[in-house]
């Protein structure tokens, strides 16, 4: 098990009921981590509509999950 920090924004934050948490996971990639959390929390957004940030930088879904990493799941943006 690896411990990582996960942050949620906008609709994902509301569906999770909190802004960030520590998660213990066996997921090996960011994509697996999102799918795992989506199953648990019932997120409505398919991964194809979400972007991931790893340690405060946009990352690929194939990014490895390592102990201590910070992941943020970013719904479709709507600034301006």
């Amino acid at each position, binding site marked *: 098990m690896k411990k990582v920090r996960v*942050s949620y*924004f*906008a*609709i994902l*934050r*509301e569906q999770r009921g909190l802004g960030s948490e520590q998660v213990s996971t066996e997921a090996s990639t960011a*994509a697996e981590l999102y799918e795992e959390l989506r199953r648990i929390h019932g997120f*409505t*957004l*398919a*991964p*194809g*509509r*979400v*972007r991931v*940030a790893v340690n*405060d*930088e*946009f990352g690929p*879904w*194939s990014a490895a999950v390592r102990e201590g990493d910070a992941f*943020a799941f*970013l*719904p*479709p*943006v*709507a*600034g*301006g």
Partner: protein
Amino acid sequence: MPSPSFPRWPGDDPVEFRLTEHPIEPAALMRGLADTRAGACVTFEGRVRDQNDGRGVRALDYEAHAPLAVREGERILAEAVERFQVIDALCVHRTGSLALGDVAVWIAVTAAHRGAAFEACRFIIDEAKARAPIWKKEHYSDGSTEWVNCATRGPESPGPG
């Protein structure tokens, strides 16, 4: 977060993207853009509108991934400087709860000539809307709310695989 209205000085970084939870004050921000090389200054003010897609809107909330929004915003401004002959570019975006008519985003671009200033300003707002990790929740007059672009069905962005 810093006040949105502290002045900027000649010699400051040529581009700056700020998030603020305080009201945006364009007049104060403009003073930081004085530069005698600039023959043009184009500004854009995005305001909270009272309707969207035929639904009455009564208020908005904005939320951002702050470090990533600032970094992506500054990348966009740097791209504008590179593509157009821009002297200075500043973009300030609100977070938090906004009322109708409030300024949600404010952009100013100075350049030697008006063409570059207009084009760069348009580029910056279009790219910021498409790329900056900022989200908008609309509160409608019928009491319902919605995160814009986050309906269950919608266009796919590049995802896994």
